[in-house]
């Protein structure tokens, strides 16, 4: 696959992300040497000084593998996505942000204006009496200053460009990363077959529970608790104790790290393949086992009230269920008013 | 136990005996009252006959004041007041439209009432539910042995059954049980929840007198020494109009009618002076004189004949199983 014996080229780029993916990548330890032997680092701004111009200089398709992490939150992110797509043979949505929006996409619960206002006007720190907000183009005596446009809706990588593979996780587990790299290496060097396009790589087959050592039974949840409210009994499924855990709706591959330390799974590996809307899956699963029922002849309003009481103990469903998958969810964002009053609506508002 | 107290117009004067005896026994039961500041009349059954909304607004003011004065647990000794207050609260909750209109009216007086924020109960209900028969029993020092009493509930304390009904609307037994706890002999009194005539004494006296007669007759038929009431209107009609009944029907009833709080006071060993005695039309002293120091011999059940068929089992009225 790689032409004229020259080493295949590897690129890794961060869009709207925290850098955790890079750290996880570097965490593969001594394997880094192998990576170095196998690949030419074509573009990796996080660890060496590459310029966009360098990248633009490459022939299209000349980069063999691009690990793209971070969500698409600005025009620059999107621009880079398109650029790297052109240059790379294999474009991988690397990590939860690029794959499904992750934490940055929680911004979709509010509006761009609300965010800008909060950051530049309402924060205690900024000193901005004039109330200046960032503009794409600002005229100054010296000429025009430009900034990339700040999007209203954060998107996943595959919502702006065509993506070959997905590596889930926030961040992806290092050994999984190494495994992925090995497949690619195998493919590039020995021409071993690559998984079908669009596959999720670097993850398990079933849900997190599959790897979770906690004991599970039939579930009946009278009410939900927030982590600080109770101390979970050790060794027992957290859900059964009323602590929200997205494990059942989340693709395995992480080794169920969080539940094992008493923290419910937050769902960073995303839904199982083929599953539409991880949040909805978890919502329906939880609701199904809420322990409120009735008998014939019950007053229907009273019954509804009892159910409402029980479900309302689950605080902030949107933030809980779409912690990582907001951009990939069916609705993708919240509907907010034009004045940018994008505050998230407290679920307890409605009757 | 602290409660807001809504005396109602009657207890100010006509039923002052009820008021005094209630005030006398309350502390012995650990009950503490704070009278509702500047309360107004509940409208009885009259106001609602002419105007609906103003009637509910009238009561609404009392509820709003109670909420304002943080008296969220109210007690009304008068059955009519109790029903008007409780009913207004419930209807405002059941009928949002009514609630909105009443609050519009209250707003004119700078008040607002949120249905459900004040719970109003009858004094007797509070004693049954919150104090309990055991606590009452513990206070009895002079049991009312030998006294045969007819327990008269009247209509409005058990009807209409506003949530939650605290006793059966047709055949309640809690007053029977309380009086038994006081040591009295409670006679069966099938008309215990029948009407005393209410305001009919003012409108169609003949109608009222017949209703009163039915009650007196039945009490006498069951050899009651006196009738015990929970309501000023009942007391006034049965006591004050007894002479009228006798004239009208050529009967000769001499049946004292006392408030349950007065009997509690006696059984608790309080002096009659503090219990409002002496204001009755029919003098209770002969009846009270019957009270003996010794418990009467349990009236022996005559063994049913061998042909007799068994009766269906009934729940024991002291709340125990049959």
């Amino acid at each position: 696959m790689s032409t004229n014996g020259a080493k295949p080229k590897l690129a890794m780029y961060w869009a709207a992300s925290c850098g955790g993916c890079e750290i996880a990548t570097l965490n593969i330890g001594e394997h880094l040497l192998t990576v170095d032997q196998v690949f030419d680092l074509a573009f990796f701004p996080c660890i060496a000084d590459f310029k966009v111009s360098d990248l633009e200089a490459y022939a299209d398709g000349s980069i063999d593998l691009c690990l793209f992490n971070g969500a698409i939150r600005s025009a620059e992110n999107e621009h880079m996505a398109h650029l790297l797509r052109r240059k790379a043979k294999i474009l991988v949505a690397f990590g939860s942000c690029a794959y499904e929006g992750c934490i940055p996409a929680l911004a979709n619960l509010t509006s761009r204006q609300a965010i800008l206002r909060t950051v530049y006007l309402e924060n205690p720190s900024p000193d901005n009496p004039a109330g200046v907000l960032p503009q794409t183009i600002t005229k100054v005596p010296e000429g025009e200053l430009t900034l990339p446009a700040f999007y209203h809706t954060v998107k996943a990588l595959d919502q702006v460009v065509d993506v070959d593979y997905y590596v889930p996780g926030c961040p992806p587990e290092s050994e999984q990363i190494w495994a992925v790299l090995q497949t690619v290496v195998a493919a590039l060097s020995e021409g071993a077959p690559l998984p079908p396009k669009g596959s999720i790589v670097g993850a398990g087959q079933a849900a997190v529970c599959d790897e979770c050592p906690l004991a599970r039974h039939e579930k009946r949840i009278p009410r939900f608790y927030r982590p600080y409210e109770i101390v979970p009994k050790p060794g027992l499924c957290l859900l059964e104790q009323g602590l929200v855990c997205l494990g059942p709706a989340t693709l395995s591959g992480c080794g169920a790290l969080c539940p094992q330390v008493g923290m419910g799974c937050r769902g960073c590996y995303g839904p199982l393949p083929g599953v539409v809307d991880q949040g909805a899956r978890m919502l329906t699963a939880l609701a199904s086992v809420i322990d409120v029922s009735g008998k014939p002849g019950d007053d229907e309003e009273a019954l509804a009230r009892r159910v409402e009481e029980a479900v309302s103990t689950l605080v902030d469903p949107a933030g809980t269920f779409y912690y990582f998958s907001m951009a990939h969810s069916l609705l993708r964002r919240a509907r907010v008013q034009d004045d940018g009053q994008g505050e998230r609506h407290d679920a307890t508002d409605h009757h | 136990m602290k409660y807001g107290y809504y005396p109602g117009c009657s207890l100010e004067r006509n039923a002052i005996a009820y008021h005094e005896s209630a005030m006398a026994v309350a502390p012995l039961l650990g009950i503490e009252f704070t009278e509702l500041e500047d309360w107004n009349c509940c409208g009885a059954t009259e106001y609602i006959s002419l105007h609906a909304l103003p009637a509910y607004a009238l009561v609404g003011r009392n509820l709003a004041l109670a909420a304002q004065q943080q008296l969220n647990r109210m007690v009304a000794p008068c059955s009519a007041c109790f029903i008007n207050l409780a009913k207004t609260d419930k209807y405002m909750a059941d009928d949002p439209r009514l609630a909105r209109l009443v609050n519009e009216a209250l707003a004119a007086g700078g008040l607002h009432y949120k249905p459900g924020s004040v719970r109003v109960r009858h004094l007797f209900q509070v004693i049954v539910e919150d104090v309990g028969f055991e606590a009452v029993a513990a206070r009895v020092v002079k049991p009312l042995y030998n006294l045969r009493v007819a327990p008269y509930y009247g209509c409005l304390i058990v009807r209409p059954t506003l949530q939650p009904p605290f006793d059966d609307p047709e055949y309640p037994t809690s007053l029977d049980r309380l009086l038994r706890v006081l040591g009295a002999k409670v006679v069966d009194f099938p008309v215990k929840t029948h009407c005393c005539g209410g305001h009919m004494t003012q409108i169609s006296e003949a109608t009222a007198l017949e209703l009163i007669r039915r009650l007196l007759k039945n009490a006498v038929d069951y050899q009651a020494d006196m009738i015990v009431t929970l309501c000023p209107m009942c007391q006034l009609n049965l006591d004050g109009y007894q002479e009228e009944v006798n004239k009208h029907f050529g009967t000769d009833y001499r049946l004292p009618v006392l408030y349950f709080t007065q009997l509690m006071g006696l059984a608790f060993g309080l002096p009659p002076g503090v219990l409002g005695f002496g204001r009755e039309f029919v003098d209770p002293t002969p009846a009270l004189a019957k009270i003996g120091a010794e418990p009467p011999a349990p009236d022996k059940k005559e063994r049913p004949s061998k042909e007799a068929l068994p009766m269906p089992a009934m729940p024991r009225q002291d709340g125990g199983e049959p």
Partner: protein
Amino acid sequence: MAVSHAARAAPTDFLAEVLAATPGGDPRLDRCIQCGTCGGSCPSAADMDHTPRQLFALIFAGMRDEVLRSNTFWYCVSCYFCTVRCPQEVHITDIMYALKRLAIREGLYRESGAAEAPAFAETYIDYVENYGRSFELGLATRHHLRHHPLGAIKKVAFGMELWRKGRIDLTPKRIKNMAQLSAILNKAKELEAADGRGGGA
């Protein structure tokens, strides 16, 4: 019996009017199955020209005048027996109140046998509206002086007896914030009038 057509409103209209005039949730009058539990339970049924059940049948038949002229509801002592016993959970007592209000609004009660009841109620609320409290002595005497000067003598004697036993005031009590109460009651009457639901609130 012969009822002039004029006297008969379209059945449903009058039923609807009565329902609307009865606050406190669905009065369920339209569920009545004419079983007579109300008429059987009523302590003053003997004095009524129609039993409650008959009155309801008349309402369904749209015989508005005949209903509002009836003395039935004026003899209602609001003991709620009918209400708790009604197998259809009809709010009978409340409907009786509603009919009283409609009858007064239409001025039809005077023809009913019980012309005094509303008068008594008027006297009563007079005191409530002026003092915020009721006032037995004034109530009894004024009412009776007005309506049976002769009977009043007897009443006065009764009043004296009450007074002797310290069970009656000679002067009415007035609540402190009478202004507030008046404001509330006036507003309420205003709303009720505007609403035109026969005081249905």
